């Protein structure tokens, strides 16, 4: 018997909670929001102007001059904006009759000239960071972005298709259950034009439906599970895909299914960022803001409390054969050592499953997480 209960991971699946999320630009820019301002999910709170491309040019080589000669041959200087085809550096050739020139390939700005090297930033599209979470700006990080506080329903996923270092994949859309069953697999045939702009929700999804969702410009996809070979397909899609349970054939867990069913048809934000090792990155998640009227009235008392290790606490299995199953801890419980099929001895606790109810299993403590 073990008296001390070590911490276990937790996943928030809450109908009402208050969250704070940093909304930051990838490079410094301008922040338009201010503390205390109410914002909608699609409101821009920060904007940056990343170059479409950074052109790196050896000025000595492109026109054949020495480094010492570069300053006197430059037609443009650091900080200058250039139009497409504008001359940046030139030198006379053929006894001064002609000039050898290097022209800007596109419009841009000269951001650096160091000795013989120049960096020319070609203008790209402005990059906007929107609030994503409808709520209030409670903090501003100058030139970086803001901190948004929001109240609403939250479902944290276990995996998202926005990988570290890649573009942020996030979207706002209306939750759309195509076939309401925790284990229903979404097929391409079920997707019609009204999928455009929606956050498609299903237990699983076929390869064809993943592709079709991209073609129809769905806002995002939230599924219980993905087949392992669909991971690369999801990463390649230009929309957020969030998985709530894991990889393989498994239905959406009862807690997630119940809440999503209640939220069907509501506007939600889907954030696909997934970088589990980075403590600054929040988990992939779906967030449904409370209606504005309810937000005004709500207080912390109405919120779903954070899950804690306690009798009747809801838990979810993290490892086969219980991966994704949801149950509760008994009224009185202690950890007991059990021998597993693999021949290991692990501290474990009895779990009363809720999917379906009435079943019990003794599950290693490290293979459970709190959910709620």
């Amino acid at each position: 018997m073990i008296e001390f209960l070590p911490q276990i991971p937790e996943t928030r699946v809450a109908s009402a909670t208050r969250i704070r999320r940093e909304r930051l630009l990838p490079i410094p820019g301008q922040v338009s929001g201010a503390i205390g301002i109410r914002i909608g999910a699609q409101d821009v709170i920060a904007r940056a102007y990343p170059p479409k491309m950074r052109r790196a040019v050896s000025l000595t080589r492109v026109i054949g001059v020495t480094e010492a000669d570069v300053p006197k041959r430059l037609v443009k200087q650091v900080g200058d904006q250039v139009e497409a085809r504008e001359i940046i550096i030139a030198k006379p050739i053929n006894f001064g009759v002609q000039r050898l020139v290097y022209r800007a390939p596109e419009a841009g700005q000269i951001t650096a000239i160091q000795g013989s090297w120049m960096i020319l930033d070609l203008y790209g599209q402005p990059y906007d960071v929107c609030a994503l979470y409808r709520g209030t700006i409670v903090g501003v990080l100058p030139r970086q972005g803001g901190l948004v506080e929001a109240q609403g329903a939250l479902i944290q996923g276990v995996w998202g298709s926005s990988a570290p270092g890649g573009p942020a994949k996030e979207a706002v859309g209306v939750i759309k259950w195509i076939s309401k069953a925790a284990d229903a697999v979404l097929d391409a045939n079920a997707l019609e034009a009204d999928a455009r702009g929606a956050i498609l929700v299903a237990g699983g999804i076929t390869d064809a439906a993943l592709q079709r969702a991209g073609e129809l410009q769905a806002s995002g996809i939230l599924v219980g599970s993905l087949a392992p070979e669909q991971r690369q397909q999801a990463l390649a899609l230009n929309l957020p895909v969030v998985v709530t349970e894991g990889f393989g054939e498994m239905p959406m867990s009862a807690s997630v299914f119940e809440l999503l069913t209640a939220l069907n048809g509501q506007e939600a934000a889907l954030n696909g960022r997934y970088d589990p090792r980075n403590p600054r990155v929040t988990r992939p998640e779906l967030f449904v803001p409370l209606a504005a009227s309810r937000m005004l009235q709500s207080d912390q008392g109405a919120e779903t409390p954070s899950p804690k290790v306690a009798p009747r606490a809801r838990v979810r299995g993290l490892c086969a054969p219980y991966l994704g199953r949801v149950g509760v801890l008994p009224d009185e419980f202690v950890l007991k050592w059990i021998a597993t099929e693999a021949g290991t001895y692990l501290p474990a606790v009895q779990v009363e499953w809720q999917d379906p109810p009435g079943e019990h299993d003794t599950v290693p403590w490290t293979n459970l997480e709190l959910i709620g």
Partner: protein
Amino acid sequence: MAELPTSILFADVGAVATKVGLIDLVAGHYRVIGATRSMSTASAPYEDIMLGVRQGIMQLEALTGRRLLDAQNALLRPARLDGDGVDAFTAVTSAALPLHTVVIGLSRDYSVTGAQRAVNSTYAVVDHTIAVDEESGRWGTTAQDGRAGGPSASVEKLAALKPDVVVMVGGIDGGAVAPLREMANIVAAVGAAMDESQRPRVIFAGNREARGDVAERIGGLMDVRMVDNVLPKLGRFNPGPLQTEIETLYRQLQVEKIPGFAKLAAWSESGVMTSTDAYTRVADYLARRYQLRVLALDLGAAATTLIRADGTRLKRAILEELSIGYGLEQLLDQVGIQKIMRWLPAPFEANEVHAQLLNQALHPTATPTRWQDLTALNAAGRELLMHVTQVWRDDPALTLMDSDLVLLSGAPIARGSKPTALLLMLLDALDVRGIFSIAADSVGLAPAMGAVAIVNPEAAAQALESDCLVTWGTAFVPEISARSGEPVVLNVQVLPARGGRLEADVKFGSLELIPLGEGEKANVEIRGGRGVSWGKSAGISGGVKGNEFKREVQGGAVGLLVDARGRPVPLPDHTERQRDKVQEWMWEAGA
């Protein structure tokens, strides 16, 4: 001289698990009197590693009945007469994110490869390398026939990245400076184009004659650090100063930013070491103490570490982002599921194994409880080891073949795999030959002993050998010529010190497990048939004459394992035959 602390509390804060233990004197001998493992708490919603540390300490209090924290959750220090409290606290950590680097140098074969090797021995990832000698047209195309030249794709790639550190190398000391000036211009231009808050640090580890030029061009823009040349003379590789500087930056930029790190550091008077530094000290200690060539492996949840120590030289590689936990996703991307499937002894569905490994990456704290899941993880472990040991393939001065002791630490042990299963994993994946011992860091505390040694070396050594390391036994891996043609290649006779005699004929292509318990010794005589040799390793450790071996060896938790499969391990090409062969080897090895 100040009195050394006798009761020492230690913590190892990893990316997934936090281990806490207590060392004290028991009958005049330092022992680990209790240890716990809890979840690390660097990430949300906790965002404070001290929560996990305190949880571990509270578990330890429950386990030992000794109070270690006061009412304010501060450490009770020093130890009291009633036994509560401790004299010292030490800590190691591997919870920080790796540094991202770019290596830019003059020659791919010399400076860039050398610097890359140095970076790989630290908690850093090389995202991009530029070698001047292989860039087409060097730095972009040149003006020709009245036409202007073009941009440099390679520099543009550098400009598109956001590394933490740029490592500049090139030239031997006293060599030409002009190409390095050009490199400095490039780095300066790329840095100048970035926002000041995002500019990388620069380490220059090239021709020392160029330092002035490099500082002049880059110094005003970025934080530049000058260290000794990684290649001061042709053929002389000097990675130490570059490694040290990267480690300094790693501490400043990543380790000190771990949520709660400052509180951990405040508890530890001797500072907080990285887990790999501490584990390296352990490997070095074992190499010196027993005059062994040690290959120490740590298969962590977030990174994989290889250390090679022989008493005079130390070498290590840290593979960030490839691991048996979080890094399984990357491993699957790099080696593919089919390579992992070939090590499975039963007809598992590739999709199921693939899904299980991905789910383990999502939940690295989980412990598989089914045989098939542990077996799949060990199959992935084989491919991981085969993949990561490739980092040393281009180092002629280093071979894994001649190791006397292979030491395993990390997640596979924590997950509770049988020692025989893990020993077979090591034999399948590592190209170590000859006669060598295998030991395991059975409770995952060995790296922490490297930090304990700072406050009390004797305590660390005694606790390490008494309570951390478990000898699994001795492996016999002869080299067998493919043309041997004889069915029986080895005749093995074992004379245990306790009495009795065991004899076995080992056929080519098979394994033989001979029981010899922990602490037991036996005289072993092995006669090899035609085409059998023991390689350089056995020659050095003694007992080999021609193709025969005769010497006293130690037993262990596994015993003696004779591997007559030849090297490389002859895995059949056909899937079913592969499966049968792997099953056969598992039976033979008792795995």
